């Protein structure tokens, strides 16, 4: 598999104006990633899937990440036809509050369907172009997004005999309120 620099050059040659930048990964495993601009992500994804040299036809994993200032979606791509991979591509939203849209890559790889729904459910990234974007793990009427770091759990303590730290504080508050 080519290095990320060569892949970046190939993408920029095929999809002009595609904002691609390399994100270095300090870990020893050497899995570097490419950050895509959301506007051209769908075109880049189609190129990566169809191009004869890459044939990245298998989207293995879609992850949502909650950074302090924005949300991110990370895609791990492999090629079943050419037995190569992984290529990691990422997209960032503008902020965490009102501009949380990203283009959905489900039209390119069907395996993103459930995983993007999960990221919408648990993080709150709205994927435009997703055929059926609704909650998948939480029930439909649920508000809020549980995997975000500022998520506050509901107050439902029953019995906490061995409470520690955070849980101890909230259990004491709960008991004092009863």
């Amino acid at each position: 598999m080519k290095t990320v620099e060569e892949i970046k050059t190939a993408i920029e040659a095929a999809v002009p104006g595609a904002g691609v930048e390399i994100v270095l990964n300090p870990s020893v495993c050497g899995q570097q990633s490419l950050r895509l601009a959301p506007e051209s992500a769908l075109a880049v994804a189609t190129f990566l899937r169809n191009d004869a040299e890459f044939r990245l036809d298998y989207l293995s994993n879609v992850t949502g990440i909650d950074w302090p200032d924005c949300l991110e979606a990370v895609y791990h791509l492999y090629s079943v036809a050419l037995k190569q991979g992984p290529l990691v591509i990422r997209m960032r939203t503008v902020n965490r509050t009102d501009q949380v849209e990203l283009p959905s890559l489900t039209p390119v790889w069907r395996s993103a369907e459930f995983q993007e729904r999960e990221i919408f459910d648990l993080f709150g990234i709205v994927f435009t172009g997703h055929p059926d974007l609704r909650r998948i793990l939480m029930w439909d009427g649920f508000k809020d997004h549980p995997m975000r770091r500022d998520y506050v759990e509901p107050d439902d303590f029953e019995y906490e005999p061995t409470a520690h730290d955070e849980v101890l504080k909230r259990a004491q508050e709960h008991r004092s309120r009863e």
Partner: protein
Amino acid sequence: MLGEGILKGLAETAKNFAGSFVSAERLTTVQYPEERIAPIEATRDFPFLVYDGADWEAGLRCVACQICEKECPPKCIYIEKSTDKKPDFTGKPQFYPARFDIDISVCMSCQICVEVCPFEAIKMDTEFELSTEDRFAGLLFDRKQLAKPNEHYRKIHPAEAAAVDARLAAEKAKAGARAKAASDAAAAKAAARPAEGGD
């Protein structure tokens, strides 16, 4: 012939059925609780605290270092350190737990507490018939319920207990040798000083 596959399958079932009357391997059901399977040595269920000797309070190995409390994944251990110290098996004064609660309705028997304990104080028991009518306080084990003698540990995990006993005996011997060397040096110095002071 139509039905040949079904007949072949029925032959297998018949072999198992008829075989269950003659061969022990085909009759695999154990009529629990009248019959029981011999327990496997390494099996683990819920933790217990080990004490040496006859008095569970004096011989308790736990020194309330709270490492198991910190490492427990579901946070089911609750320890309160004592304010005074008592001597441990090498004679050194150590803290002990004034409170040591394990909520076994939360404990998931992962045995990480045993792995990280530096004092061989907490080990895994093999008791699993622990059902009670009180699902809150009946499943919260305190210090007294958790303390079991070293003989119990030797009975349920003989090989492991033998290794632990050997390790602790070696440590005690080393501590004893160090103490003896220190006291010999102090005695030699005390013997030398009056000779000097007399001059």
